[in-house]
């Protein structure tokens, strides 16, 4: 027996090793448990070295790398090469500093804007495995990182913490096939589950066929998974495929565009709103000001809206009754807004009737059949051919017209008696008078001289 074992020692060891590992895998799968000790050993052995290398690289590699790069042009003259090298070094150094400053500024801005509590971390390595996408960060349980915490950058979500060690953590990337997060589209608010695909892209599952999702639309985290706070950018839709039950939506994750160097672990997530869709830049045609438009603008627009005029009218009515709008105890009697006040909601008395100055326009008939429009100061004697019924000093608004004005009765508003008179024969004070004019004469054709052509 002993010789048999010795003879098949190698194959026996192989079987033992294989069976032990299969048993270990089966135990992990069945218990949904892990072998943390082995991971701790491996990660503890490698991450300090990676951290040290990264620190040295970030501090010195750029300067030395550019130094050697600048010395590559040996064919040029020595002076030019030296100058060029110096300038390149300085330029690259400044670019690096600028880039670092911009990046730091963006990170600081992001940290200041977000309401969640963040832990800054450096990415110090990627992890191995077919179809697996995860990274190592230099913050662990000593820094307060816990398993399941969300990892983000200002660009978008990066992943979630898979394993936590003392000074490092393993982060499952959004593109890993095992990653999932609840997301919501920005424009149509379509909800779904974002899943990694093991490649550089991801997809959104469980979106029913009827829901609208557009290419180019942005998905944000919805906060329903209790890992990522609501409102973090997730990715942009690159394609939509209809399925029998659910749509398949392919998205380009924001946080996986390039390997991030700095990330944030969200230790205390606070939801924020998903921003509204920005307005499109579609140009809108605005016509230029029409020539002479200001003169033709209606009176209501020139003096404000109708509501403004109504409010002004109420204010004047209140003032006429000794009431100030907005003043007065609750329950006190309001002013009578139906009261007719001349000049406010009733025809005003002509200025001439009160002896005031002003002009009144009259329309007179002539023997030649021409209709004249004339102006005269109210209170002065009428001109030749003036309305025979109107006398100086009479209120023009109620002037008695002679029988020559066919169809018109004394006391009627001229606008009702004389179509077209509103534009052709309007007194400055609002009072109108007409004589010898017949209803139906198109007065609107009045020339600039005030002379109306016979029909």
């Amino acid at each position, binding site marked *: 027996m002993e010789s048999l074992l010795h003879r098949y*020692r*190698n194959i026996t*060891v*192989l079987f033992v*090793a*294989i069976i032990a*590992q*299969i048993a*270990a*895998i*089966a135990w*992990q*799968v069945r218990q949904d448990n*892990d*072998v943390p000790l*082995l*991971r701790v*050993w*491996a*990660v503890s*052995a*490698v991450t300090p*070295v*990676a951290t040290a*290398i*990264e620190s040295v690289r970030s501090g010195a590699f750029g300067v030395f790398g550019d130094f050697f790069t600048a010395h590559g042009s040996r064919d040029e003259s020595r002076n030019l090469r030296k100058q060029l090298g110096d300038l390149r070094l300085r330029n690259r150094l400044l670019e690096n500093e600028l880039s670092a400053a911009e990046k730091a500024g963006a990170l600081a801005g992001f940290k200041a804007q977000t309401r969640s509590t963040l832990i800054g971390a450096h*990415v*110090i*390595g*990627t*992890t*191995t*495995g*077919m*179809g*697996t996408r*995860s990274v*190592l960060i230099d913050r662990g349980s000593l820094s307060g990182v816990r398993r399941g915490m969300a990892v983000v950058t200002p660009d978008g979500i990066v992943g979630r913490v*898979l394993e936590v060690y003392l000074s490092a953590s*393993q982060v*499952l990337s959004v593109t*890993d*096939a*095992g990653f999932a997060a609840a997301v919501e589209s920005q424009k149509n608010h379509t909800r779904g589950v974002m899943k990694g695909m093991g490649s550089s892209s991801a997809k959104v599952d469980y979106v029913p066929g009827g829901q609208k999702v557009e290419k180019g639309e942005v998905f944000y985290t919805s906060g329903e998974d209790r890992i990522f706070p609501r409102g973090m950018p997730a990715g942009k839709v690159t394609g939509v495929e209809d399925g029998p039950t659910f749509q398949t939506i392919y998205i380009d994750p924001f946080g996986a565009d*390039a*390997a991030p*160097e700095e990330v944030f672990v969200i230790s205390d997530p606070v939801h924020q709103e998903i921003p509204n869709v920005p307005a499109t830049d579609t140009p809108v045609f605005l016509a230029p000001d029409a020539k002479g438009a200001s003169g033709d603008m209606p009176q209501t627009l020139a003096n404000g809206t109708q509501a403004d005029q109504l409010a002004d009218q109420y204010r004047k009515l209140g003032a006429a009754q000794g009431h100030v709008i907005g003043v007065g105890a609750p329950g006190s009697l309001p002013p009578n807004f139906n009261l007719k006040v001349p000049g406010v909601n009733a025809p005003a008395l002509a200025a001439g009737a009160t002896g005031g100055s002003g002009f009144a326009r009259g329309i007179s008939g002539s023997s030649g059949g021409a209709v004249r429009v004339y102006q005269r100061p109210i209170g002065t004697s009428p001109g030749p051919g003036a309305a025979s019924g109107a006398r100086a000093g009479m209120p023009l608004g109620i002037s008695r017209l002679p029988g020559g004005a066919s169809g018109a009765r004394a006391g009627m508003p001229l606008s009702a008696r004389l179509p077209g008179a509103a534009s052709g024969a309007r007194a400055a004070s609002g009072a109108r008078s007409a004589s010898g004019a017949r209803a139906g004469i198109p007065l609107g054709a009045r020339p600039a001289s005030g002379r109306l052509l016979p029909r």
Partner: protein
Amino acid sequence: MGSSTGRILVDDARQVRRARYPVWVFFVVPLSALLIQIYLPLFQTLRFIAKVDLPLLVTIYFALMRRSQIRGLSIGLILGMAQDSFSRFYIGMYGLCKTMVGYLSASVGMQFDVEHPFVRILLCLVFYLFHQFLYWVLQRAVLDQLVVFDLPGELILAVIHAFIGVALFHFLDKLRIRE
């Protein structure tokens, strides 16, 4: 490689002698392979290194050169489990694959002149494909994951691994203790 006789099959006792290395090589080389694979892909221009399974090549090399099946499977087991520790999968997936590769490499190393470049290219190519296929089988059988085996892609990667393997083996040969 310099001592390669030009023949592929082993035909004398000199060729089956085990290569010897300083002790530090057995620590530094595997650790470096792991470190390179997890650190260098961080840089945009070096992302392709994530596709290169350096721990696998190191396993093949030491198993071939040490010509001991137990040593070969041991180094495969340790490197594979270390690699598992950095992946999100269960520990033992890579360990099992590399254990098999280590054992078979050592077995093959006793039959061939493993310093011959053609043998090295061929072995790297075959063992890479075997490793990937075994991993794929484990993913489907043990973890019940519906993963597709991308044969054309794996073939291209196998060729790349073969040439990287030859260069790496040439470098590692220089660490040997000369007798």
